[in-house]
């Protein structure tokens, strides 16, 4: 455990009221986090949530890494939105991440806006929000912050680390750089590097935010404004990439929104327009624009092979971790081929790896939705590793 750390209440301003994201810990007083950029960050706060009981051996921890716009609130009611947590149908008693059996832990990523240190937090050096003076962070920095949290909690090795999309990137980084702390790894709908197309979509989102006059070079908190229009547009564009053509067509087709005929104007005539506007609007009520900039940038920089002399195979030499990669047939943001590249690299090391492609038309977001085959795979794999690890059955 790190010395001199204390759990202290935190406050964040959202939707008009202060929300405490508890529990949270302040880490790195003695030993700042050395970021990939070279900057040293510390002290820093990590806010997290846990579900299910930690066993006496502390061997039943399942660490969940959340995606770009996710957070630590996996299940139950979200304190900001009041809606169920983003993995409410996956985490709970009798669910794939069975809280009767596992101690499920999820931390808000570094750079996030749900209580962990990010651009909206107060810089202790200036007493003002970091804004754009917050250092650039990477996926590896997020993982290092989580490793410090595990140190603090006295957890050596986790049974499994699991996550989708950017969460899957963290899973891969965990397995690569902390193989002894990860018994098994479940990277879902992700890739070993952000592709040009991925970066391109992120850049569209960032430009939408940074060209919003209310952004004020990132200092909107000082101006009492928020770049809500830009952030909403960023979300709308991104949200399209999380779905599939088939799913959009099935859901909306060319259906009109509360009207019989098109209006020959630019109102949201079509249901799909209304849906996207709603997605954008509800997103700005729970997410911070600068966090969006920083976290998308972290994804863009992610490239495991580049960190290993250009060879993905070299990244996983002698890996002792048990892997289960999962992709979805209709995911065009992180297509199956990306997962397959990782499988090839793991096979080249004769690693213990499972790889499943799930047939679904729900697109990249499939891992957030109720896809029975996906749940069955998660349950089966976790049950298998729990047995190998010597945990009793449910």
């Amino acid at each position: 455990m790190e010395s001199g750390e204390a759990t202290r209440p935190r406050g964040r301003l959202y939707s008009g009221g202060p929300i405490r994201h508890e529990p949270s810990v302040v880490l790195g007083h003695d030993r700042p986090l050395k970021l990939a950029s070279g900057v040293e960050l510390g002290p820093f706060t990590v806010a997290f949530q846990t579900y299910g009981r930690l066993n006496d051996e502390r061997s039943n921890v399942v660490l969940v890494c959340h995606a770009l716009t996710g957070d630590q609130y996996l299940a139950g009611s979200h304190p900001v939105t009041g809606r169920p947590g983003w993995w409410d149908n996956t985490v709970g008693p009798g669910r794939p991440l069975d809280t009767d059996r596992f101690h499920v832990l999820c931390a808000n990523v570094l750079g996030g806006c749900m209580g962990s240190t990010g651009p909206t937090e107060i810089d202790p050096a200036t007493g003002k929000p970091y804004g754009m003076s917050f250092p650039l962070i990477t996926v590896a920095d997020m993982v290092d912050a989580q490793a410090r949290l595990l140190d603090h909690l006295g957890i050596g090795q986790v049974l499994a680390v699991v996550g989708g999309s950017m969460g899957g990137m963290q899973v891969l980084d965990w397995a690569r750089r902390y193989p002894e702390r990860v018994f098994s790894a479940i990277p879902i709908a992700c890739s070993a590097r952000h592709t040009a197309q991925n970066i391109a979509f992120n850049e569209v989102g960032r430009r939408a935010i940074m060209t919003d006059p209310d952004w004020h070079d990132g200092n909107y908190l000082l101006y009492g404004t928020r770049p809500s229009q830009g952030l909403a547009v960023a979300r709308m564009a991104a949200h399209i990439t999380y779905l599939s053509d088939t799913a959009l067509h099935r859901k909306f087709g060319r259906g009109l929104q509360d009207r019989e005929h098109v209006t020959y104007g630019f109102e949201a005539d079509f249901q799909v327009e209304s849906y996207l506007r709603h997605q954008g609007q509800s997103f700005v009520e729970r997410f911070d624009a600068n966090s969006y900039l920083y976290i998308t940038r972290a994804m863009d920089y992610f490239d495991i092979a580049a960190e290993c002399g250009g060879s993905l195979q070299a990244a996983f030499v002698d890996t002792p971790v048990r892997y289960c990669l999962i992709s979805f047939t209709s995911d065009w943001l992180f297509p199956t081929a990306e997962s397959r590249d990782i499988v090839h690299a793991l096979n080249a090391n004769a690693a213990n790896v499972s790889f499943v492609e799930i047939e679904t038309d729900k697109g990249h977001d499939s891992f957030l939705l109720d896809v029975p085959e996906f749940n069955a795979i998660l349950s089966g794999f976790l049950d298998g590793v729990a047995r190998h690890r010597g945990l009793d059955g449910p």
Partner: protein
Amino acid sequence: MNDQPASNRESGRAIGQRVDLQLIARMIEPGARVLDVGCGDGALLRHLVEHRGVDGRGIEISQAGVNACVRNGLSVVQGDADTDLEDYPDHAFDYVVLSLTLQATHNPRLVLLELVRIGRRAIVSFPNFGYWRCRLQLALGGRMPVTDTLSNPWFATPNIHFCTISDFLELCREEGIAVERGVALRHDGAAVGFWPGRFLPNMFGEQGVFMLSRRG
């Protein structure tokens, strides 16, 4: 995901009813590292992991087969014996198993060479096209054979490269693959001896099971 496992392993069928799988299981010593290529729904792999304590992995071409395996906690990847074996390093496994799958591959010769490269030993089983019932159906009936191990009619079979036990042994000889053990299984599961030569096993074996290694 409606496709069935392409290897001729019927879903849910226990290893207890498959004489060749029982034989293969007995050939593998406990605790070995095993790769089962074309592992179907994982019946052999599961048996090996649970009863022989092996470190087992599988490759299966059909998504339905892969999902069934992973749901049961087995380590299996979706992949193709024809294209994906080249990923693996030399001698990564003690045994590489290919049971009733060789005849469904596009390039059996290359697949065999990959098996003995990846594994210190390879165990290969295949339906024997020289089996007397096959010969009889073709010679006298004038029809493509349909037997218990070759259960599909010609137009629906995934099997594209049939061979006899003699053909197989000849290919091994040409490619410098050592045959360490060979068993021809009769329809009732009994073994046909290879003494004094190949004639009897090639005539009365419904399938052949061979343990191979790379010579030299």
